[in-house]
């Protein structure tokens, strides 16, 4: 087990390293380099930057300095927001995104798993068909469509929900809905097919023959096995939620990291882009790592390699 964890950890570290390297060299391919602000930077700040990142040294030396800085959690100053460092911005903005994201993930799980089960248990009936149709359509609708259409209907047309910011619980409804829409429908499909698979297994018949009640066999035998595919989907779902937050935060003007990233792209705040990319990539890789390990723990049938 520990060998497996170690191997995974090495892979994760390697991936983060690859991302950091790619980020550095891609940003250095930008004419003028990533440290070049359009105009607004003062000579002192520029001198400080040059000293800090060793810009007078050869590229490889700069790369090493940059890696060292990252390891110390230092992503440099923001080029557009005077006097603030990138890590400072990330640390103030990320909790907002994380809150919306975690709520969305929970909503997808809480809604998706039971609905998928219900569909599987009513296989072929009207309720099952309805759920399948909705889930099939749900997978095809991009998040920006859910975002903008729900904003139009509930925010602008009906005026039920506020459209901007995150001041009350009502503000969370639409962003969470938009972010969890796709994962929920995906989980429903996943859960339904897994559940159908499990319900046809021999041990379910054995349980029934033993006289285990329907509910008990459902929770003790079926659900525990059927939920495994959903666990594997956790990693991709988190990644989806993170990238989905770019759109959602842009549309609903939420002061989170996703919206910040999008505006740093249009502002060409290269330091901010680099920092956020590495931060988010590390986060995603870490989540995937944890999910992988957890999966091996809860499913003993999987052989450890």
């Amino acid at each position, binding site marked *: 087990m520990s060998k497996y964890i170690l191997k995974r950890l090495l*892979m994760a570290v390697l991936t983060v390293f690859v991302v950091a390297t*790619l980020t550095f060299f891609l*940003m250095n391919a930008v004419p003028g380099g990533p440290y070049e602000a359009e105009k607004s930077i003062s000579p002192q700040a520029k001198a400080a930057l040059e000293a800090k990142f060793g810009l007078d040294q050869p590229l490889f030396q700069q790369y090493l300095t940059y890696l060292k800085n990252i390891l110390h959690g230092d992503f440099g100053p923001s080029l557009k927001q005077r006097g603030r460092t990138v890590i400072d911005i990330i640390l103030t903005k990320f909790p907002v995104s994380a809150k919306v994201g975690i709520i969305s993930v929970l909503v997808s799980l809480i809604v998706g798993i039971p609905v998928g089960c219900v569909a599987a248990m009513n296989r072929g009936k009207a309720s099952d068909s309805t759920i399948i149709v909705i889930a099939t359509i749900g997978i095809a609708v*991009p998040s*920006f469509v859910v975002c*903008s259409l729900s904003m139009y209907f509930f925010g*602008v047309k009906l005026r039920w929900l506020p459209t901007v910011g995150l001041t009350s619980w009502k503000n969370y409804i639409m962003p969470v809905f938009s972010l969890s829409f796709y994962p929920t429908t995906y989980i429903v499909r996943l859960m339904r097919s897994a559940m159908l698979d499990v319900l046809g297994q021999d041990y379910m018949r054995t349980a029934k023959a033993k006289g285990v009640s329907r509910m008990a066999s459902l929770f003790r035998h079926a659900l525990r096995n059927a939920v495994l595919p959903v666990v594997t989907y956790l990693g991709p779902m988190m990644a989806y939620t993170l*990238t989905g937050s770019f759109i959602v935060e842009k549309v609903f003007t939420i002061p989170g990291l996703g919206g910040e990233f999008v505006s740093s792209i249009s502002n060409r705040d290269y330091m901010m882009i680099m920092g956020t*990319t590495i931060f988010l990539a590390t986060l995603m890789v870490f989540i995937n790592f944890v999910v992988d390990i957890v999966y091996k723990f809860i499913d003993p049938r999987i052989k450890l390699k």
Partner: protein
Amino acid sequence: MNKNPLSLQLKAEDFLPASQEEKQGLVVMRDSVSFWKDSLRRLVKNKVAMVSLAVIVIIMFFSFVVPAFYPYSYEQQQKGAENLRPMTYSQAEQERIAAGEKITPHFLGTDKLGRDYAVRIMVGSRISLTVGLVAAGIILIIGALYGSIAAFFGGWVDIIMMRIVDIIYTIPDVLLIVLISIAIRVPLENLANAPGMRWLSTVGPNLVSIFIVFALLYWVGMARIVRSQVLVLRESEYVTAARALGAGNGRIIRKHLLTNCIGTLIVTTTLQIPSSIFTESYLSFLGLGVAVPLPSLGSLASSAINGMNTYPYLLIAPSVLISLIILSFNLFGDGLRDAFDPKLKK
């Protein structure tokens, strides 16, 4: 002659060669059904898949053929025709109609620069479809070759190649697309100014960077699937036979291994189209897609958000269309999968 039925005496006429009719009468086999015919038959029976295919064909017709004949072009700005509602005419157009001229109505109105929205939507879906198809093609070629080479040679070649796949698999794609599109924007703009490269500036560096990223990252899923198929196939007898007859590695991969997992290849490629369209529309919505004035469904929806209170149809039309495109490709892909590999059907 001897009439005894139990006699073993042989009759000479029993040994005459059979006539053509007699031969035909003994053939009990039907015409052999080829893999393609069999799959096609299953596909045609699948109503959902056929309806999706029809929708795809109609959308393709409207996005690739109709704009060429349409009286308006996607970038033509008409003065005085800004922000028209659907089916209404501008002042100038009304006068021309009064003068007896026949004018195509703006089926979806016009945008704030006076461009006909219907044709912009058509061209926008053309971009989406092109991205989907081209990306799927790139992914098919790279993924299939990479996966089959890794599986065919096995051993340390396989290990190294699949470790690379593992790493690429975990790199967050959207982040990398953003980075690459920022990094290659200026070099591509310079390249676009070079003679013979005009098309680059029409398409826009962002779109090119999307293709580059698809080519760099998205083939890994395909490579994994092809690898697992080839791992099974390479143990089969016909590969041994081909080898015994002196076929080289390249020939075996091309003629035997890839042709035998063609069903999987087709299905995976088809299902890759909607996901590429998905990514493209996402990036366009963030402003990282095609260059203005070229529209894409994502960028059309994005720019319609600010005016959604007054002009909701500008938002609803591209949103519904992109969902419809992705849905049809998804359903058609599912149908293909059921047709090519009925065992996979759940």
